[in-house]
């Protein structure tokens, strides 16, 4: 992050501005990915006027960064109308999609609307692996076609490569594919429990030896791997906030539910019952999240990894305590450094290996 962007985030944090919002427009999807945490039935999505009213409220609250996601957003027939409305309100718009429904015409419209980036999920460069994860034959070919249509329009595309057991060894192939296509690629080994609390898909997480391979792959992490953490815990770290969730960031579901983050399903209010500003400033749940400083975390505040850990408070919440450790991140800290983390110790995994 540039110094100037950091300055903007710091200003937003100091002023309690919800600078970034992840807005799922639908949970419906035309893929059935094995690791997906969503229920794809439509339980009453917000209508077009409801969504545009929420966008008005977000603009007034100071939100700049807006991500439309799902589900598959192109299943909403009003998607381009909503993007046009958001752009007229001068949001910085990103879209997350599988790209299956993006052809030349859609790509041109996306370019015209001034969308800054599209993120498209690609699980493998091998059709048999990608299509087995999405459960849609031909889906890799269609997603790649979408990327080509978008690139031809000059739209910036980011490939999102989520790693799990099924595609653990394929990320070099996906990265090579991204290079060939001239687009960016991000790799993420995070598999979260389902929104309803079902943890069965957590079993798809990369086993420890494969995760270790990722963390020690110089082509991904440069020379920073296996860096032992400083066991000294400074005051600045302890005074810090665990992450931006609920501070400068929040998540809105297709049904108007507001959460601190897409990975932090703590119900904090509903936009069909309350105005956004009231939820943002007065929700007891968001207030509770905001009150937490690293020093308040009973286990993590004394862990040697605390200053470098990627601890996700949402994952900790889903494990039962948003002030507790997130065991998946404890394991990542252990694997990255070889040093024991407070929530997991060498030789004793967290169940994902």
């Amino acid at each position: 992050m540039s110094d100037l962007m950091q300055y903007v985030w710091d200003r937003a944090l100091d002023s309690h501005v919800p600078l970034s919002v992840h807005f799922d427009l639908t949970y419906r999807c035309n893929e059935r990915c094995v690791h997906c945490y969503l229920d794809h039935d439509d339980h009453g999505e917000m209508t077009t006027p409801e969504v545009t009213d929420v966008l008005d409220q977000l603009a007034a609250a100071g939100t700049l960064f807006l991500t439309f996601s799902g589900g598959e957003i192109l299943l909403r027939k009003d998607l381009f109308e909503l993007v046009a409305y958001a752009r007229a309100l001068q949001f910085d718009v990103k879209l997350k999609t599988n790209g299956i429904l993006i052809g030349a015409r859609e790509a041109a419209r996306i370019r015209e609307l001034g969308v800054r980036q599209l993120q498209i999920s690609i699980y493998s460069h091998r059709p048999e692996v990608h299509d087995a994860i999405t459960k849609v034959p031909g889906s890799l070919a269609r997603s790649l076609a979408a990327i080509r249509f978008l690139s031809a329009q000059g739209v910036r595309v980011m490939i999102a490569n989520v790693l799990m057991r099924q595609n653990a060894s394929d990320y070099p192939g996906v990265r090579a594919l991204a290079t060939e296509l001239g687009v960016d690629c991000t790799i993420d080994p995070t598999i979260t429990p389902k929104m309803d609390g079902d943890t069965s898909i957590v079993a798809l997480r990369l086993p420890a030896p494969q995760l270790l391979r990722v963390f020690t792959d110089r082509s991904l992490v440069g020379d920073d791997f296996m860096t032992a953490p400083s066991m000294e815990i400074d005051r600045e770290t302890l005074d810090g906030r665990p992450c931006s969730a609920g501070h400068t960031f929040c998540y809105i579901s297709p049904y108007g539910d507001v959460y601190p983050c897409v990975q932090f399903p703590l119900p904090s209010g509903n936009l069909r019952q309350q105005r956004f500003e009231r939820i943002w400033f007065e929700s007891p749940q968001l207030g509770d999240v905001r009150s937490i400083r690293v020093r308040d975390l009973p286990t993590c505040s004394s862990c040697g990894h605390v200053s470098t850990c990627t601890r996700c408070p949402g994952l900790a919440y889903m494990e039962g305590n948003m002030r507790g450790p997130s065991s998946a991140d404890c394991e990542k800290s252990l694997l990255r450094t070889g040093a024991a983390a407070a929530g997991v110790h060498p030789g004793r995994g967290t169940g994902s290996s």
Partner: protein
Amino acid sequence: MTDIFVARSDRLAARKVAGEVVILSADDSSLYVLNGVGSAVWEAADGRTPLSAIVDDIICRAYNVDRESAWRDVEEFVAGLVSYGVLRTSPEAMSIDLPDHRPSVDI
């Protein structure tokens, strides 16, 4: 001193955050943060208000500066943002696709 009209580009995202306008280019992700004077010029750049009116009615009044200095500084500022594609200018009034900048809540 030739008067001109100034308009915001429609390929940008922008929001007022804690009193400063933050601008992000949709095309190349360039980021700009405007100070108070710059933010005032940006908000007034609706394509219909002449630059002279922006200087006289907004900048000179709000910041208690003499017209000559204000005009020189604002001209330089506008020329800079035009070179980055953030603003555009014309000798005639312009329409912009985006709605007028809404009064932001200065949180």
